[in-house]
């Protein structure tokens, strides 16, 4: 069951991790909008450690305004960036987990 719906505003966690991860540093602590659901996959952290019984976790396509990602963004207000984020890396905007 997916936690987030299309249109939800979400914030990427700041969590540090020793695991191999695919959550880019430039998205940490940033807020965007869920625009799509992705199929449920083994999360990459577990793939890297080759655990066959890794959790299956929902993924989301999150769209950010570039001006929210980069403090000195030199492009236009309407520019965006999309990337895929695992549910475990997301909080509802405004309810950030430390």
């Amino acid at each position, binding site marked *: 069951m997916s936690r987030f719906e299309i249109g939800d505003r979400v914030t990427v966690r700041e969590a540090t991790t020793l695991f*191999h991860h*695919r959550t880019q540093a430039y998205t940490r602590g940033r807020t965007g909008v869920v625009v799509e659901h992705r199929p449920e996959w083994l999360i990459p952290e577990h793939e*890297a*450690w*080759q655990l066959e019984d890794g959790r299956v976790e929902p993924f989301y396509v999150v769209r950010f305004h570039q001006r929210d990602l980069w403090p000195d963004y030199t492009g236009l207000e309407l520019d965006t960036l999309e990337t895929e984020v695992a549910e475990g890396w997301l909080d509802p905007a405004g309810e950030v987990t430390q």
Partner: protein
Amino acid sequence: MSMSIDDQRYPVLMATLRRADPAPPEPDRTPAPWEANLQATCECLSWRGTLDTLERRHAEDTLGATTYADFPAHARAAVVTAHALLEQGEISERELETKMNDVRARFQQA
């Protein structure tokens, strides 16, 4: 599998760069045949569980900015892959040196 690629210098790998001033990379240089062979080697090493592609790419970025900063960009996959295999103990420096001498001698006869 866990692996750390630390910032060690292996003489056998540093010696592969003979030029003091490497040429800047061309925008559309045509890859040499050995580069395609190396890419296939990297795929196989990842597929068969020795050296994960994402780890190797991270290492290319970090070691490419430090230990192998003087190396041409197109050579980094080669030296970093070798570096990782040495680091992991899959091959030894002596084995690599011996094999390279053998290969070099064969190539010079060709």
